[in-house]
């Protein structure tokens, strides 16, 4: 069996199981910063049962839990949804719920694994995402995974008595393929520079 498709350098993606994972997903929501980085709808607290119902009703999404390779902990989730199969497009959402695992490359690694799945198995043409202007860490992460800036939705979010922008990003299969080639050649090049 070859399940390396779902594995990155730091994480593996495993199918999100609402029965097993709803409790954990609901618990992450107690961190209001996490909710505000993830979604523009009002931060609220949901019972695990409601979380489970939500996933049961939205099962056309391709939802994964992100599991750290080093200790097998479930640290976040990532999912593709909103498919347009004729155009080959979808939207991605990601959240690293465990605070200790943020800003350390786990999310970027999960996104890379997901894009690999999206482009080499689902044959998508492009993947879309939205990110909020106050989430600079995420913007940098998405750029590393291959996403390109495609525009700014001005004053889209009204929170903290302030209107914030939403940033739109997208990655085409061709962008992603180019990045794979560059990453392959960049390893010997950097060694040469160091030498």
């Amino acid at each position, binding site marked *: 069996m070859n399940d390396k498709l779902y594995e990155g350098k730091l994480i593996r993606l495993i199918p999100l199981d609402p029965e097993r994972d709803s409790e954990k997903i609901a618990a992450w929501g107690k961190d209001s910063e996490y909710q505000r980085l993830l979604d523009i709808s009002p931060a609220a607290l949901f019972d695990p049962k409601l979380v489970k119902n939500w996933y049961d009703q939205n099962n056309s999404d391709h939802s994964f839990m992100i599991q750290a390779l080093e200790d097998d902990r479930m640290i976040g989730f990532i999912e593709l949804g909103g498919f*347009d199969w*004729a*155009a080959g497009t979808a939207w991605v959402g990601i959240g690293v719920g465990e605070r200790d695992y943020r800003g350390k490359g786990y999310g970027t690694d999960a996104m890379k694994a997901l894009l690999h799945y999206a482009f080499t198995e689902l044959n998508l043409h*492009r993947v*879309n995402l939205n990110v909020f202007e106050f989430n600079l860490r995420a913007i940098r992460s998405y750029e590393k995974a291959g996403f390109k800036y*495609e*525009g700014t939705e001005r004053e*889209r979010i009204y929170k903290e008595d302030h209107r914030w922008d939403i940033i739109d990003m997208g990655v085409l299969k061709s962008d992603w393929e180019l990045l794979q080639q560059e990453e392959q050649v960049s390893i010997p090049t950097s060694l040469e520079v160091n030498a």
Partner: protein
Amino acid sequence: MENAMIGKSLFVGQQVELTSLDPEKDSAVLSIWARDPIFYRRMFRRTLKPLTVPELKKKLQETLKDANEKHEGIYFAIRKIDTPEIIGLIWFPWIDGQHQTSYLGIAFGNDEDFDAYALETMKLALYYAFMELSLHRVVIIARGNEPKWIELIEKFGFLREVQRRENVFSQGRYFDEYLYALLKSEWKQKQNEVIE
């Protein structure tokens, strides 16, 4: 002054009026329009699928019921004043009250009606959006294969904020998809200009 503004009709213009959408009467016409892929995508956004009149009627009934119950969506049929035939549609599919924003959809059944009535319809739609729904921001989605439509929304001051490269597939090729937005402050500034 305030009373006079409240008395101004939100629905009746010079040539067209915004009326209720009637799934019973309007579905037959809409099912013909839905055979145009550009209309279909604008209305339903997703991959094309053949729709019978009963299917379309059911879809409309469900959409209107949902919009009415959740207070998140508003739909209007555009008709020439004092005539029963529908010539187009306006809709605000997801009114986001928290952030005071909504998408605006407008579609006409044929090019002649677009040429004759789109401008006035747009004025009514934007007045309703900013002065009745009290939105801060109105968003319109346009695609690379809708040049007339893009020309119209740019006339009204909508700014192209996002260009989603090759996000739509139609007529055998990819097109870019654009997100256009107009803020209330920008719309107000434009009120002193004649848009034609």
